[in-house]
C-alpha cells in the first residue's frame, strides 16, 4: 500500500469550450491530513475536486487515489473511498426525504437494510439531525441542509471527505458548528473555500491554486500569513489575522 492517499501528477484539463481549467497540477496528500484548497474565483478549485472522484477525467497526467489509478474502470471503486460534499446542498439532496437521501449511498453499495438503517441513524446523529429524518429537504433551513448533505456522505464511510465551499450562506453560528464538526472528523479532509478563516481553523495544510496550477503548498498558518503571496492570488489575510497587526 502506498502511504499517500491522493496524488495528482501533472494533470491537465480543459472544458469543451476551450477554457483551460487545470494546467499541470501536481500534489500529494497523505493519510489523515486536512488540506485546504484556496485560490481566486476561477482558479480551478471546483474542477480539481471534480477530478478527485472521477467525474472529470484528466486530458493528460495521472491521478492516484489509494491503490488505484483513476480511469473509467476504477472510478466506481474510487468513489467509494472519496465522499464529495457539494457546494450547494440542494444539488446533493435529491431524494424526497432526509432519511431516504442519507440511505441512498449505502443502499447502492449493496449494504443490507438493517445495516443501512444503522449507518443512516449514526450519520444523522453525528451531524445532529436525527429529528429531521422524515422531512423533505426543501423544508429545511440552509444550515440543516448542509448538515444533512454531510451526513449523506459520511453514511458511506468514505476514507476521504472532500468539500466545496461548505460554509457559504450559513449564519456565523451554524458556520461555527460546522467547523467544530469538521474538526472532530478523523477522515482525511480536503476543503476548497474562500473562507480563509475556516481553512485556518480546520486545515493544517493549505494548497494555493492559480490558473490551474499549484502556486504554493505548505502549512496553513505560514501560507495564509504571507501577505504578498496572498495579494498576488486575489486573496487577503484571513480576517481574524487582519486587525491584530494593525
Amino acid at each position, binding site marked *: 500500500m502506498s502511504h499517500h492517499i491522493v496524488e495528482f501528477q501533472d494533470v491537465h484539463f480543459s472544458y469543451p469550450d476551450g477554457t483551460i481549467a487545470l494546467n499541470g497540477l501536481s500534489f500529494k496528500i497523505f493519510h489523515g491530513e486536512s488540506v485546504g484548497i484556496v485560490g481566486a474565483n476561477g482558479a480551478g478549485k471546483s474542477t480539481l475536486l471534480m477530478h478527485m472522484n472521477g467525474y472529470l477525467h484528466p486530458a493528460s497526467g495521472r491521478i492516484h487515489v489509494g491503490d488505484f489509478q483513476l480511469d473509467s474502470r476504477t472510478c466506481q471503486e474510487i*468513489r467509494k473511498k472519496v465522499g464529495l460534499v457539494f457546494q450547494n446542498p440542494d444539488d446533493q439532496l435529491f431524494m424526497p426525504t432526509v432519511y431516504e437521501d442519507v*440511505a441512498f449511498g449505502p443502499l447502492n453499495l449493496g449494504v443490507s437494510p438493517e445495516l443501512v438503517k444503522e449507518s443512516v441513524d449514526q450519520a444523522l446523529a453525528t451531524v445532529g439531525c436525527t429529528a429531521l429524518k422524515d422531512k423533505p429537504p426543501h423544508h429545511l433551513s440552509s444550515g440543516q441542509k448542509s448538515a444533512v448533505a454531510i451526513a449523506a456522505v459520511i453514511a458511506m464511510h468514505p476514507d476521504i471527505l472532500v468539500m466545496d465551499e461548505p460554509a457559504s450562506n450559513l449564519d456565523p453560528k451554524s458556520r461555527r458548528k460546522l467547523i467544530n464538526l469538521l474538526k472532530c472528523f478523523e477522515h482525511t479532509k480536503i476543503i476548497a473555500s474562500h473562507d480563509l478563516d475556516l481553512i485556518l481553523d480546520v486545515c493544517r495544510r493549505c494548497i494555493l491554486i492559480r490558473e490551474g496550477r499549484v502556486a504554493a503548498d505548505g502549512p496553513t498558518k505560514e501560507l495564509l500569513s504571507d501577505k504578498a503571496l496572498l495579494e498576488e492570488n486575489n486573496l487577503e489575510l484571513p480576517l481574524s489575522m487582519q486587525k491584530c497587526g494593525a
Partner: protein
Amino acid sequence: MTFDEKYFDVGRLDRLSYQSTCVHQLDPRAKVVATVLFLFTVISFPKYEVGGLIPFFLFPVLLMTMGEIPFLFVVKKVLFVSPFAIFIGIFNPLLDTGTVAVIAGMPISAGWISFVSIILKFSLTISAAILLVATTSFPGVCHALRQLGFPSLFTSQLLFLYRYLFVLMEEAMRIIRARDMRAFGTRGTGIKVFVRLIGILFLRTVDRAERVYYAMLSRGFQGDMPSLRKSRIAMTDMAFMATMITFLVVFRFFPVTEEVGRFTQELFR
C-alpha cells in the same frame, strides 16, 4: 395569480401533506385506488344526474375534517382552478332549452340541470385530486404508483421532478422578481425578455441536472433507484377500502337523496 402566489400555493399544499393524521397514515396505495374508484363512480353518473351526486360530498368533507385540511383552502382551489369545464358547460343551458321540471312555478331547462351536474362533478373530482395529494404527499403517491405497476423509470423521474420543483420554482421566482423589479408595469415583460429568462433558467437547469447526476454517482448510483419503503397493507387500510367500496356502491345504485327526501315528506305529511 402572480408567480409568488402560485409558488406559495404549491408550498402550502405540500406542507399540509406532511401532517400525521389518521388519514395521512393510511397506505398510499389504498388512497390512490380509492380515489380512482371514487372518480369513476362520480363520472359514471348520467348527464342529467344531480341528486345522486350530492351524497358523494361526504367523502371530501370526511377527508378534510379527519385529515385536518383547511376547508377554505380546498374551496379556493376548486373555485380558481381550470375554468375549462365551466366554460364548456355553460353552453348547455343555452343550447338545451327543453323544460323538464317546474319548481316553485319556475320552469327548469334540461341544460341547466346538466350544467349543475357538470359543476357538481367538477367540484367532486377536483377536490378528490387535491385531497389525494394533501393527505398522501407527493412521494407517497409516486411510491404507490410504482407499487401498482407503473414503470420505475417513470416514477423515479417523477420523484426527481417533485424534489426539484421547489428548488427551480424558487430560482424562477427570484428571476421573475428581478425582472419585475426593473420592469415597471408591462414594458419589460414582453416575449423577448421572457424567452431569455426561460433560456437562462434552462441552462441553469441543465447544469444543475449535471451536478445532481454527479452527486448521485458519488453515492454509488448505477442506474437503479433503491427504495427502503416497504409498506405493508394494514387492517385499517383494508377496512378503509371495504367501507369506501360499500359506500360507493350504495351511493351509486341506491337513490339516497330521493329516499331521504321522500322519507322526510312522509314524516311531515
